[in-house]
């Protein structure tokens, strides 16, 4: 460093002596300060262009579009912080035989008793007294969905309770003396009514609290008020039931190993044995029905008596044409297999469960198989023989749809719609959470604006559903929210260029950045070196001046 600086600093006498040597090297004349300054400007302007123009353009053209997602809110939904599902159920009490004040007192006492019994805050029963109207009107209002259940009180000999089989009505009779006096703080009749209500809604309550606890991600922690046995049964039922869909395709298939029977009276059998239930279910689901006959179908298991393990491989999925229907809706398969095979039941285990009889079994989220044995060479299956299979199919259909098992049919169905809306709400929330976590975990994934729109839609519908839980609109909103959330999560353009190898980037950038970058960097370094040297020289000169 010292040597070079000495040779560079121009000392005139030395150069004069060197000049005399023929072979010796000359020093270049001193550079003009304006040239030095100009060179600095050149280098700096190049760097300015690179930094102010090149880098922004590069950044702009290579960055991926990521619409901003409300990640925190989405995570709130998935963690259950955004919505606390509450099901306020209105129960109308109709006591035409009682005086207004007596009736009000009874309702108040029953409500107290109910509140004392209730240990799960999400599911809340609220009693209200019906204004004295005709019975038909009340049935009307229950159909509108404002009231989940009507209690019809009527005087009788003893305290009894009975669910009306075709309407959401609980008939309670009471001996006249049990009516509480306006001053009393407790009443046997009120407690009885409260207990009846609680047992009626026990299954729904258990199911919803199970769903909520499963969604919060702590399956070990048992929800309050649900015994382990009940929880197990609920878990079994939830895994068995199909994902919610507004429409289901029902496919009835007749399979047989040989060439007969090749025809069946399925249309009339369905009309007779299954149609009534489908009609009742129509407010919640639509159904399309198709039937087929498949001959020469060999089952996956050939043994005469099927054991429990063999049931799972009985359906010969590779050969049997049970392809799902086209169109979005899921298919539920009902298979009648004509053959002389039977199911060997371990009598103790399976008997009371009612799922596996000796002829049929239910395949979770798929459908039902019924083994039908026919005499000899029958070529046609009449309606009478199809009665038992179709009744089995009907009960299995309800269980595949996730309908609760206790209570009267209208009550079960209204419970189903509430369970479904809670389920859809939780599903949509968890999809939102997954999307939020995905967008955090993969910083290089593109998020198109349609996803952001979908998320916004989902959240607005979730909010609406959460606010109207327990009413029929909730099901609609939850359904829309779930569909929107799924659409946003499975957006096609998000997965397109997920993998872009780094080697590829090197191959693209290196040929340009190498030859251009090296002169730029070396130029800058030289310039810095020269600038430091000049500063030192100036300092030395200043020192020398002072000394002299």
């Amino acid at each position: 460093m010292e040597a070079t600086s000495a040779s560079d600093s121009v000392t005139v006498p030395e150069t004069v002596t060197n000049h005399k040597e023929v072979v010796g090297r000359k020093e270049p004349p001193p550079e003009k300060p304006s040239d030095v300054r100009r060179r600095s400007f050149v280098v700096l302007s190049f760097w300015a262009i690179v930094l102010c123009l090149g880098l922004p353009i590069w950044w702009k053209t290579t960055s991926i579009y990521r619409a901003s997602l409300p990640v925190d809110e989405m995570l709130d939904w998935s963690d259950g912080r955004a919505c606390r599902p509450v099901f306020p159920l209105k129960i109308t009490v109709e006591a035409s035989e009682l005086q207004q004040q007596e009736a009000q007192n009874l309702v108040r006492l029953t409500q107290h008793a109910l509140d004392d019994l209730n240990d799960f805050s999400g599911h809340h029963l609220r009693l209200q007294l019906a204004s004295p109207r005709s019975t038909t009107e009340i049935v009307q209002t229950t159909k509108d969905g404002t009231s989940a259940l009507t209690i019809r009180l009527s005087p009788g000999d003893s305290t009894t309770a009975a669910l009306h089989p075709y309407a959401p009505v609980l008939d309670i009779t009471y001996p006249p003396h049990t009516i509480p006096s306006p001053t009393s703080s407790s009443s046997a009749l009120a407690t009885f009514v409260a207990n009846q209500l609680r047992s009626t809604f026990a299954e729904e309550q258990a199911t919803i609290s199970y769903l909520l606890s499963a969604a919060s991600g702590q399956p070990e922690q048992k929800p309050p008020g649900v015994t382990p046995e009940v929880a197990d049964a609920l878990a079994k039922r939830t895994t068995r039931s199909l994902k919610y869909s507004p429409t289901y395709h029902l496919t009835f298939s007749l399979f047989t190993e040989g060439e007969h029977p090749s025809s069946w009276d399925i249309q009339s059998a369905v009309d007779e044995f299954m149609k009534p239930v489908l009609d009742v279910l129509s407010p919640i689901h639509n159904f399309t029905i198709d039937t087929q006959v498949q001959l020469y179908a060999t089952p996956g298991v050939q043994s005469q008596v099927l054991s429990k393990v063999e049931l799972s491989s009985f359906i010969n999925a590779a050969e049997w044409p049970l392809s799902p229907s086209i169109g979005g809706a899921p298919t539920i398969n009902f298979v009648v297999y004509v053959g002389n095979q039977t199911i060997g039941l371990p009598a103790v285990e399976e008997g009371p469960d009612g799922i596996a009889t000796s002829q049929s079994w239910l395949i979770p989220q798929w459908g039902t198989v019924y083994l039908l044995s026919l005499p000899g060479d029958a070529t046609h299956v009449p309606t009478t023989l199809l009665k038992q299979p179709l009744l089995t199919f009907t009960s299995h259909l309800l269980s595949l749809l996730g309908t609760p098992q206790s209570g009267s049919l209208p009550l079960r169905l209204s419970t189903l719609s509430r369970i479904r809306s809670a389920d859809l709400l939780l599903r949509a929330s968890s999809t939102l959470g997954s999307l939020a976590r995905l967008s955090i975990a993969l910083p290089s994934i593109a998020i198109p604006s349609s996803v952001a729109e979908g998320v916004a839609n989902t959240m607005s519908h979730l909010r609406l559903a959460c606010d109207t839980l327990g009413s029929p609109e909730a099901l609609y909103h939850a359904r829309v929210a779930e569909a929107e959330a799924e659409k946003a999560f499975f957006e096609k353009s998000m997965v397109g260029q997920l993998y872009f190898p780094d080697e590829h980037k090197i191959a693209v950038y290196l040929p340009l950045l190498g030859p251009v970058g090296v002169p730029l960097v070396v130029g800058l370094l030289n310039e810095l070196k020269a600038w430091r040297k000049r500063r030192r020289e100036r300092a030395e000169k200043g020192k020398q001046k002072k000394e002299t």
Partner: protein
Amino acid sequence: MHRFLSFLLLFLFSLYASGVASAADYHEQLVLQPLPLSALLASFNFRSNTSLSAFEAHNYRFFPRSLGQILQHAGTRELHLRFSLGHWDAESWGARPWNGTREGGTGVELWAWLEAEEEDEANHRWSTLTNALSGLFCASLNFIDGTRTTRPVMSFRPEGTLPNTNSSSNTQLLYGVLPREVVCTENLTPFLKLLPSKGKAGIASLLDGHKLFDASWQSMAIDVRPICPPGGECVLEIEQTIDMVLDIERSKRPRGNPIPRPVPSHELKCDMTKPYQSDDTCYPADYTASQDWTLSQVFGRLMKGACPLSDPSVPPVCLRVPHSRDVYVSVGVREMKNADGLSRCFEVPSDAEVDIVLPQIGQAGVTGHTANGAILTPDTPPLYAERSFTGYGQERGGVQTILTNPSPDKEVEFVYMESLPWFMRIYLHTLQARLDGQNGADNSLIQEVYYRPAVDRARGTQLELRMRIPPASTVFLTYDFEKSILRYTEYPPDANRGFDVAAAVITILRVGQEAVSTSSLRTTTLLLSLPTPDFSMPYNVIIFTSTAIALAFGGLFNILVRRFVAADEGPEVSIKTLKTRIAARLSDLVKKFKQAKIDRKE
């Protein structure tokens, strides 16, 4: 040949007649016909139908549900699907089975009448249909997009009676073709699954992917059409057809030892009439050479009885050889000779394994003389067609189709349809038809032209010509085209193989009755080679432009930044100075090293 055609037609009509009788029924028949050059044509035909009311109520019995659902979902009135492989050698095999109406060009062909008011709706339904069929048949039918779809105007006519057919304006015909698709066993399996017998009984038990796709030519066809007999209930009919031409020598090879080996010289079948015939010279006797076979040999398995579902009035197997030949059959099979003297049918029990043996026609069969009695001479087809590329280079090309009318007295009228890919830009003004032996174009040959030009990357060219060829003459139909250059990403894998151009469809019209198709044929597909780029090109371009930029930039930057001095003023740069500098550095290092050693010792 007309006898054979009329035989098939008669058979078809008899099936129609019986189809009217019951709403849901099933028929199947296999027709075997030995062809010259030791070939055997096997025509499998399966037909089942369902009443339209049952179809609309989604009750399927013999009609396959998987296909029925697709038809309903896509609003399809009539559907025709073809999977074909190989080339029909019309020169030696004569006219085609079913008059060519049950075959397609190489690859996959699909045409359907869809219920749609507008073009957009039709396109949407078409894409639904192709996607669903693609899943059902494990074929790439979903690649039939706008560029591969045409709307033929003259070539196809509905085979069934469309309901409310008076207002046929609300059905639209779409035609799509995939010439590159390789038809294989995975297409046969779903095809067999559509049959009520699932390929486990009846003649379908003979179908085996190994033999079918080893054939010289094969075509699988599915036709769905609504038929409304006058006064009867409308039915929806599905007809599945498989035609195959087996090379008997090839099929008889044992499965475990399929490698062909040269025949020992004493087993060669030579034409003894040739004057040069000797021990070391042999002219192969072509006609009867190995026209002896058994069913189990050519299909690799025995037939598992007649299908119990099928109509008992239709014999399941028919064989077309002269009555003079003996045929041996298994026990229980009853032979019925037809009155025409050219064919016989077999009634087969449903629970027996059946074999049919066509023995060698005596020792005399070795010579060429008795060949004429051994098999039937195939009929002459109404038209021969062959198509090829002309032109050279990477830019210009041409297509030439040679159409020959063999009939000595009848002229033939037909519609010639090409659906070409968009990157083949044809020059319509160069289209000309020329009679053999004449110079210059003959304008009277082409009677009508329907032309829909291509739109780049959106749709292909559609060209339909109605032509009339005088008796016993040959017509050369030629046109030129330009090959366009595709974008980098538009080339398929293995682009240097070339691009398949779909077969031309020739629909022969019955003279007198306008626009009623009687038979059709297809040319072979063509392989068009387009100029293909070097696919490492993007990297080359990047490196090349980068180098150019670096050179320009480096020069500019250096001129601006460097200081120029005289040669003797700058720092000395030569090998000598470099050497001395390196030597000095090295000696410095050595010294330091030694010093360090000494220090350590001390």
